[in-house]
């Protein structure tokens, strides 16, 4: 399958990428790892008029610990996250999620910024960003994760905005992310994450709606002394997932409850 024709330029810096986006207009797209965009282009579900390739933008590839925050450049690849000591020590769930994205070949190319900007409802990083209240930094502004994801494949970013950095507060307590899928390299049918942070629990859900979900009802139940089993019953509160080839809406809600329970229990080491 051959994508529709497009113009192509490599950017050497964020500044150059922005000016290329402005020159090409709103049908242009940033090309990061390309492992969501290129498949969509092959199927012609996406037909951007131009691609601005930021793979050569070295300034977007880093992991730093500064002022108690883990700062990650948007072009940092999954393989670099899964093996990075700073990530493993400070936000271990991020390294564990990176280790489970796609397969070796995908992890060698795909980037954290690409996943977040693409905002696929089955993406795992958006859930983690939401539950850990990460900050997403672009060339224009800073977004809280809850304000960044607007709909499926839709973020708050403008057409000439480039995601540059993701900032996580340190979260190195008990945690578990469970990705339920049929084959190792698949996207999550449903995913659930639990992270102990500042004495409370953060619970996030993947692929149960157009955007990532923070299961606040579960968090509150746990704070009020409910067992993981009792609290997880609230994981499907307010959810209205759409069905797909792999799971009906009811099955996804069931999975949300079961996986939330398991994630909390496994995080606790129970």
């Amino acid at each position, binding site marked *: 399958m051959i994508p529709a024709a497009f113009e192509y330029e490599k950017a050497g810096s964020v500044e150059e990428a922005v000016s290329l986006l402005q020159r090409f207009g709103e049908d242009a797209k940033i090309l990061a790892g390309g492992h969501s965009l290129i498949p969509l282009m092959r199927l012609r579900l996406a037909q951007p008029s131009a691609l601005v390739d930021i793979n050569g933008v070295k300034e977007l590839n880093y992991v730093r610990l500064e002022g108690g925050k883990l700062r990650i450049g948007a072009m940092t690849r999954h393989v670099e996250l899964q093996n990075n000591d700073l990530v493993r020590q400070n936000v271990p769930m991020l390294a564990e999620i990176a280790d489970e994205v*796609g397969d070796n070949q995908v992890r060698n190319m795909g980037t954290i910024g690409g996943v977040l900007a693409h905002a696929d409802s089955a993406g795992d990083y958006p859930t983690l960003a939401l539950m850990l209240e990460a900050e997403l930094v672009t060339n224009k502004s800073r977004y809280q994760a809850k304000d960044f994801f607007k709909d499926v494949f839709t973020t708050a970013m403008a057409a000439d905005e480039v995601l540059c950095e993701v900032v996580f507060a340190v979260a190195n307590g008990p945690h578990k992310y469970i990705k339920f899928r049929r084959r190792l*390299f698949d996207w999550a049918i449903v995913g659930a994450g639990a992270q102990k942070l500042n004495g409370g629990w953060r619970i996030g859900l993947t692929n149960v709606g157009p955007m990532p979900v923070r299961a606040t009802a579960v968090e509150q139940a746990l704070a009020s002394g409910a067992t993981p089993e009792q609290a997880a019953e609230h994981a499907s509160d307010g959810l209205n997932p759409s069905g797909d080839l792999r799971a009906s809406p009811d099955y996804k809600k069931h999975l949300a409850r079961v996986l939330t329970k398991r994630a909390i229990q496994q995080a606790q080491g129970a």
Partner: protein
Amino acid sequence: MKRKVSLTVNGTRREDEVEPRLLLVHYLRDVAGLTGTHIGCDTSQCGACTVLIGDKAVKSCTMFAVQAQDADVQTIEGLAKGDQLHPLQQAFWDEHGLQCGFCTPGFIMAGVYLLSQNPNPTDDEIRKGLEGNLCRCTGYVNIVKAVRTAAKTMGGQTKQPQATAATAGGD
């Protein structure tokens, strides 16, 4: 509009004019004439198109040829030294790690990457390392055996494939 792309394929420098939309796998097969790299699924799932770019295994169906500017690409054709097969090729032969053979080039390239990262993998690590490649014939048992055998042949002293200063996709 066509653009010039220059890269190294199996040690040979090439320069070609390509459309930006030309996928690397089509470039390798149709422009460079290296048909050992296969197209299995066209949906980035099966891994039949796996090649090495620098020291990294990638799916050449999920990259444009223009992205490989200045890259060092290695395909299945670049593994053997004359008549002497690469240890992984030999092990797939000896262990019969294939039936129809369509997925084999991708498995071997993924195996080369796997052993470069982990020269002495356990069976579980081999299976996880090959998760991005699908075989519809073998049931994988002989493929895992072949990688295990190759690891032994290579004496657990696998060196990283040579990294080049400029890898496509920029590290």
